[in-house]
């Protein structure tokens, strides 16, 4: 019995090590949520302890045997008991009101990170990947990428969210709370990272077959590194020089790929699927499903349905020479 209980308790502890941890905040927004959570926990523990103590006291005073006749009403005892119950009701109301106000204050603070130098990022949910666009008043300077949000450390980020198909929900637990992405209705949330690192995110609203494989990574880096990254993302795709890569580009542009994807600097400019201009610079493929290397890329292209059943991407039915060239070309898009 003890052994079973011990095993269960240890198993429960296994949940503590998971990476998307809302209780290990890396920015002010998540810290506020974690702080409010701790307050709720502390109040709940205190209330539980008091209630249990009173209950145990009542159990200890119980009268044994069959029910005695009801005692005569003692007016003094009656008054004391009435006072005790009234005090407990008032205390409960005050506690609930206190938690209500604390919750309102937290929600208000979450929506008020606004600062004039905030970075604006538009995130659009698709089945089953994230489109990320860095806003700029000059359209030519906007940057589009997928499944990775790069943010500078210490600068507030306004994430404007919407959905292209069904309802999704953006959740990077170490940075901010959840926000639903709705079709035809814009929403937004603030996030800020206080230390550099890679923070996991996940779609938090069931959105179809591959909801579980709709992950994203928030990459927080020093402001200079972020600017370097942004400047690089603005450049068009590298012009291939080797004949194999040139052939790969031909295959991409002449085949079905170009009907859905964009590669800046070429004639491919469709927006159904993720922007591939700097595909090889990202850490994962297929929204966090595969690591981004040539082997995984080839496996993904040859049969996406075996990796993500139900995905909208069709398989690339190409002769081996064309296929190899296509993989090499996509792998060269740094």
């Amino acid at each position, binding site marked *: 019995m003890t052994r079973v209980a011990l095993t269960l308790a240890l198993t429960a502890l296994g949940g503590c090590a998971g990476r998307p941890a809302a209780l290990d905040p890396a920015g002010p927004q998540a810290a506020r949520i974690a702080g409010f959570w701790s307050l709720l926990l502390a109040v709940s523990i205190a209330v539980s302890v008091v209630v249990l103590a009173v209950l145990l006291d009542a159990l200890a005073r119980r009268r044994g045997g069959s029910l005695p006749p009801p005692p005569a009403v003692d007016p003094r005892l009656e008054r004391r008991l009435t006072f005790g119950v009234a005090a407990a009701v008032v205390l409960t109301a005050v506690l609930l009101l206190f938690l209500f106000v604390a919750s309102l204050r937290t929600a208000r603070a979450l929506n008020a990170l606004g600062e004039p130098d905030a970075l604006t990022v538009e995130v659009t949910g698709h089945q089953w990947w994230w489109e990320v666009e860095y806003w700029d008043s000059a359209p030519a300077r906007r940057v589009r990428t997928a499944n990775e949000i790069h943010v500078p450390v210490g600068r507030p980020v306004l994430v404007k969210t919407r959905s292209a*198909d069904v309802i999704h929900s953006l959740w990077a637990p170490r940075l901010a709370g959840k926000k639903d992405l709705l*079709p035809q209705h814009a929403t937004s949330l603030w996030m800020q990272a206080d230390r550099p690192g890679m923070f996991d995110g996940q779609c938090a609203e069931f959105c179809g*077959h591959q909801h579980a494989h709709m992950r994203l990574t928030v990459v927080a880096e020093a402001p200079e590194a972020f600017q370097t990254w942004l400047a690089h993302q603005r450049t068009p795709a590298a012009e291939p020089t080797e004949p194999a890569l040139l052939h790969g580009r031909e295959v991409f542009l*002449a*085949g*079905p790929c*170009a*009907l*859905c994807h964009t590669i800046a600097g070429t004639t491919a400019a469709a927006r*159904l699927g993720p922007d591939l201009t700097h595909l090889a610079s990202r850490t994962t493929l297929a929204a966090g499903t595969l690591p981004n290397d040539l082997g995984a890329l080839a496996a993904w292209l040859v*049969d996406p*349905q075996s990796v993500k*059943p*139900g995905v*909208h991407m*069709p*398989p690339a*039915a190409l002769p081996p020479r064309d296929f190899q060239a296509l993989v090499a070309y996509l792998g060269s898009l740094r």
Partner: protein
Amino acid sequence: MRRAIGALLCAALATTACQREQRRFSDSRPRDAERSAWAVAEGKRLYQAFNCDGCHGRGGGGGMGPPLMDAAWIYGVAPDNVYASIMRGRPNGMPAFGGRVTESQAWQLVAYVRSLSGQPSRGARPGRDDHMQVRESEQARRAERPVAAGTPKPGR
């Protein structure tokens, strides 16, 4: 005996849901798109995504191109005729998408175009729309008997 027959009937009734809820994602038999609700729904999505509705109208009501929801099928009623129209194009404006869309995508589009006049089985046809329905859902339509109408006369 009666109970056994009842149980058998119930079991048979349960199988009617098979086609509707079947999700075959494999591309090994692209011509079977009509038999999978998922594939027909993909065709519906691609119909918009590849801008077919730009010429043929949302829901196939017609526009710059001929309507796809009526019973007059200019280039023939067989699935192969529709497939050929998509892949090889047709005179007076229909571009050839061969090599641009994959074979499986083309068959998914064929299945959706045919569902506009209720050709695939009811269980496989889409039952809802992301936009305002222009008429009853594909699933609710009665199957039309299409007529091979031949090339339209100039000026029609």
